[in-house]
């Protein structure tokens, strides 16, 4: 699953464009993640211009609010 560093995310949407499962959605002020459908491909981590995304083990605590 994906963790977003809210301090460094610039809300640019590059991650959304490459997510093959549509589990990311950008609003004006928030990047939403749906970790229930994330397949852990890591594409979003690779393209994030600010290194704000990281893959975390499912057992680790997520910082996400529920959608």
């Amino acid at each position, binding site marked *: 699953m994906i963790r977003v560093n809210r301090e460094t995310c610039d809300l640019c949407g590059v991650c959304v*464009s490459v997510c*093959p499962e549509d589990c990311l959605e950008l609003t*004006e002020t928030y990047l939403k993640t749906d970790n229930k459908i994330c397949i852990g491909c890591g594409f979003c981590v690779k393209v*994030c211009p*600010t290194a704000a995304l990281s893959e975390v083990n499912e057992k680790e605590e997520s910082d996400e609010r529920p959608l």
Partner: protein
Amino acid sequence: MKDRYDVLVIGGGPAGTTAARFAALNGVSVALIERDREIGVPVRCAEGVSDTGLKKIIDINPNWIAATVRKFRFYSPTKQQVELHSKETGYVLHRRVFDHALAVEAVKSGAEIFTKATAYGLTRTENSFSNVLVRYENRERTVQAKIVIAADGVESRIARMAGIRTNLPLKDIESCAQVLAGNVDIDPERIDFYLSQKWSPGGYVWVFPKGDRMANIGLGVNGSMTNGRSAAAHLNEFLDENFPNASRLTTIYGGVPVATNLAELVADGLMVVGDAAHQVNPLTGGGISSAMASGKMAGTVAADAIRCGDTSKKKLRAYESEWNRTIGKDYRRFYRLKEWIRNMTDAEFEEIAAAFQGMAPTDVKMSGIFRMAVKNKPSLIVDAIKAFAGF
């Protein structure tokens, strides 16, 4: 905001506002919704556009122009320079001012615009309407439209909701970072490109002048070649080495699609335009004029479809075929070149630069540079010549 429009445009960039303008000019009711609080903000763009591309769609207003350029300089990894003076005029825009002006044109033509309005769902009804779920003024509502135009950018989800897969493979996205740099020693009439796999793997560094000692300095790293280093990290390294005294008046990040044409640009009652449709020159990453051109095509076709009472995919294909026949045709060519250049080594960049040393800038042609770049790949030489025939 009303409950029903002929055309609902989602996204207020140049593609969306131009689509709204041309649909409204052709006499149908149009609303445009923009997710963010202000049209034109935040800017996620290097702001370069050609005179030819711009004036096809709109009368140019000098207030939008930060710099006018006719000189281009390429730097190899060891900073061999190749300079050329083009017949083509380029501009570096103030995108914030420009996008605002395009929105004003759309409104003057009769379109309604709403900011801080987000589309989050799309369904097609049995009687050929689209129901768009919109969050606006802290309330969720359904807006009905005969045609939805998805102009919601590289992060588009609307087209996907209509069954058009816009998800990009890693090799077809550039991850970008840019600063508006102050106090930099640049030529205010020249655009500089730095080509090297060190600074910007699978992309390039650009320096676009924005007036006296000011420039947009940024770079793109190909999504398949990031190797654990972000675009921001690449840009910091470039600036530290090349512009150590630069102030950073703006810092932005974003993604540029460098893909070939989408297989489908339309569905029943839906059209995709601009970055959402990957309508960006895959070689240069420039997308302003193609976004506006596609917006004009889509807006015009949408109005015609509504007048004819037929908003089917088949009818809307008029837009898709116009795109594929014109700019789309060129972009297929540019995509082949981009794929070739993406994989070039620093040694190859040096070799190309070396071949042009001692030549006068007026004798160097863009087509010649690209011909040299693809000299080991004869099947691409015609593409290279045609891609830059005008330069």
